[in-house]
């Protein structure tokens, strides 16, 4: 990965030049937004790791919840943190997806490396109908090779991970029935913007 230098390193004159172009660029971007949004849309990518990791984690009430309880259903395993700004908007969207799925999709939201009380307070403000699990020492996140939050895996009915997305995703546009078909057909599922 190539890392950019901090803005202040690049110098004020450059910033002034960029600002001057900014106005004209904004018009161009607005005019081509639908095409550009499609080109940059988040995608559910095929997960080719080949492993089939699992977990049993405590929920916020202290009960141990196993991934295996979702066998026979499509499952979404969503890694997040309450302090991560891109994560916060996804939980309600995942809740709506689970409601549309009417039981055919099971969602597990896993808080990574947070104290219990912070997570409990957070979900009081963002109530959801699925389990919020606590990966206190990052062991499960590491076992699933998660580096970025949010990251979501989509598992087939045998609980084999098939798709993942390593950024926030527009779950409101997902048809649960079509998602299940996608796991079978192998087609990429784009997030419309």
């Amino acid at each position: 990965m190539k890392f950019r230098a901090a803005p202040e390193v690049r110098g004020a004159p450059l910033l002034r030049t960029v600002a001057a172009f900014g106005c004209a660029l904004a018009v161009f971007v607005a005019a081509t937004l639908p095409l550009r949004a499609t080109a940059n849309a988040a995608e559910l990518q095929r997960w080719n790791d080949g492993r089939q990791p699992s977990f049993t984690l405590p929920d916020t009430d202290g009960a141990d919840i196993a991934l295996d309880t979702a066998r026979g259903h499509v499952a979404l395993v969503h890694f997040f943190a309450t302090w991560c700004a891109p994560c916060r908007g996804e939980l309600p969207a995942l809740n709506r997806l689970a409601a549309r799925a009417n039981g055919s999709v099971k969602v597990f939201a896993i808080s990574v490396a947070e104290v219990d009380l912070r997570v409990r307070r957070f979900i009081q403000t963002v109530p959801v109908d699925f389990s919020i699990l606590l990966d206190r020492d990052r062991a499960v996140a590491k076992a699933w090779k998660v580096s970025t939050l949010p990251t979501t895996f989509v598992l087939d009915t045998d609980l084999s991970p098939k798709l993942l997305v390593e950024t926030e995703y527009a779950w409101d546009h997902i048809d649960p029935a079509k998602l299940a078909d996608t796991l079978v057909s192998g087609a990429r599922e784009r997030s419309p913007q």
Partner: protein
Amino acid sequence: MHLDKRDFLKTGTAFALTAGLPLPAFAQGTFAPRPGIWRNFEIVTKLEIAEPAGKAQAWIPLPSVNEKDWFKSGGSRWATNGVATQPRDPRYGAEMLHVEWTEGEKAPWVELTSKVSTQDRAIDLSIPGTSSLELSATERTLNTEGSDLIPIDGIVKETSDAIVTGKTTEVEKVHAIYGWIVEKTFRDAKVRGCGIGDIAAMLKTGNLGGKCADLNALFVGLVRAAGIPARDVYGIRVAPSKFGYKALGAGSEVITKAQHCRAEIFLAGYGWVPIDPADVRKVVLEEPPGNLPIDNPKVVAARKTLFGAWEGNWLAYNFAHDVALPGSNGPKLGFLMYPQAECGNARLDCHDPDTFKYTIRSRELTAA
């Protein structure tokens, strides 16, 4: 009214003396910590647990560093309505006050008073070093291996190798990594997503913004990946900077949120050398008026000075990583720099004042 420069400086001096403040040294354009004068501080931590549910316990870091040239931990005393012990992390020697309260205690509290002595450090890496200090094999291993939050393989090793390409001496390699941290670690709003907390995740996501513990952990990891011993030093600021840097000192006697992590590297001929790239970034971001350009004189001075020197206005708690809290069933801490507490099996949020209230105050003592 017209003021020429001499009048302005005189006016500034008069104001400073009237206010009882030292003349900001930076007005003279210098940021030059110099060892030679020990300063003594008393630090008082008061901790209370509101609404305890179940058995409550707390852990407070104690000053555990003793380095003859710059820091002496002078001992601690405490008062509490619980039972206190003073366990020590076996690997890094980090000491902590562990207090346990009986279940049903309605108002758990503890007050801890610690004394320390500290002075400035300054090592000139442009002249050959004369130190005969060597690390034992155990010490070298401890300070070149990875930890839970500081892996040194994979992308960390790749990044380190790329930064030090073409550098031959250890000083050159560390200086290259230091410059890389200073110039690359910023919060890029275009980068979505957050890392899961270790330095590899920072590099993989490209999200290189963070606090001192994140940035200096990244520095330490990259240096260790280059095979050079390095360590974080976890502590807290105890006094203002006498060089006029608002961002590099405690703003008042209340230092509850003044925790700060520094770093050291070990070089043959020099011993442990103070380095603090995170504080250079802090000057960029927070030194008034904020968001200073990298060529601002205060940033330039900080960047030059904080490679080999730092000011003795800071208390060093410990060098510890992956700290297990005795008596807790919870996970290890990546580092011990803040008080910690649990009620039942639930670890409290050390940043939530509603449930876990503590204050830390600093007072400089006159020489005995």
